[in-house]
């Protein structure tokens, strides 16, 4: 038994080296993330306001979500590239937040209500993340929601053999909305994911 003690000491020393290495890697990752974290928006008077329907057809108003941190993306389900990229990023962000993701509410607000009906939204949002809530409504209600945080969008006709086929040009950021409804940050998929996770976690400190 006594002869096994030196072996135990060696194994403990290797373990200590592993711990030291992990500490160094964690510090390095945190420093990189802090350096790359997108800046917060300060002094904005913009507050997200909406009265829409979720992808189950139930009414949902911005007032119902006060007190929560919101991650809001405006897009449309027939978007060829940007929306899948940004919603895929949003999914990885939620995965990166782990259990903390329960403290944020992710929203996808369509800017194309003519095509993005409740059933279309229901099929779409779940493919990206089961926690994502799709929102649609009347054209003017969506325009009001977009205007409240400065999102711009417009219809663009596209040549195809389908008459009236169009796409939507739209702002591509994910809008981070604080518990009082104020716009506090914009994220997009070009920001390193670790930086975005760190930024969202730091905003959670102020949550009730």
């Amino acid at each position, binding site marked *: 038994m006594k002869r096994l003690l030196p072996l135990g000491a060696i194994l403990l020393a290797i373990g200590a080296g592993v711990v030291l290495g992990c500490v160094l890697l964690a510090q390095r990752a945190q420093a990189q993330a802090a350096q790359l974290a997108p800046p917060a928006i300060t002094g904005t008077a913009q507050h997200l306001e909406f009265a829409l329907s979720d992808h189950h057809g139930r009414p949902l108003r911005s007032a119902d979500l006060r007190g929560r941190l919101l991650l809001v993306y405006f897009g449309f389900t027939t978007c060829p590239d940007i929306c899948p990229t940004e919603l*895929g990023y949003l999914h990885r962000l939620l995965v990166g937040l782990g259990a903390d993701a329960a403290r944020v509410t992710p929203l996808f607000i369509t800017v194309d209500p003519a095509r993005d009906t409740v059933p279309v939204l229901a099929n779409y949002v779940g493919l990206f993340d089961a926690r994502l809530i799709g929102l649609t409504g009347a054209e003017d209600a969506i325009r009001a929601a977009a205007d409240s945080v400065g999102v711009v969008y417009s219809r663009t006709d596209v040549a195809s053999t389908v008459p009236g086929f169009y796409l939507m040009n739209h702002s591509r950021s994910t809008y981070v909305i604080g518990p009082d409804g104020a716009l506090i940050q914009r994220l997009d998929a070009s920001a390193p994911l670790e930086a975005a996770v760190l930024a969202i976690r730091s905003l959670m400190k102020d949550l009730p």
Partner: protein
Amino acid sequence: MSSDSLWRWTLRALPLAIAVGFGLTLWVGLAPAAPGARAFPDLAPDHPELGRRAYAHCLGCHGVAGQGIPGYSPSLTDSAVVLGSPASLARLLLNGAPQSPRWNQHMPAFKDRFSNAELAALLSLVRSSWGNAAPAITAAEIAAARRSQP
């Protein structure tokens, strides 16, 4: 070997053991990531939903039933490209395709967005849906297509 000399050797070896643990951790932690990020880090590479979830990135152009949009994006049903060579199809997905006189929408390159397993699940789903009946594509075939990139 006496107990005293064993401990003497052990004490001498301790710094080396710490260095080994430290070095191994940094080697693993700083290793470059495998090609292709995982779009669904929460799903195992053999998860049955992987292909359907990945298709969310395609349905804007190719439609919920792979029907495409005439003049804009091709149909994925009964398509020689979809049902043909796995290597060619994999390269098309990895590198994307430019806009053309026939198709008014370019296809983005997916090589940095999906892992090999995710691309394999996606292509296997497309090759076996909406009346298509071509064999599945494996992650190894996607990896080979990546390696064959110029």
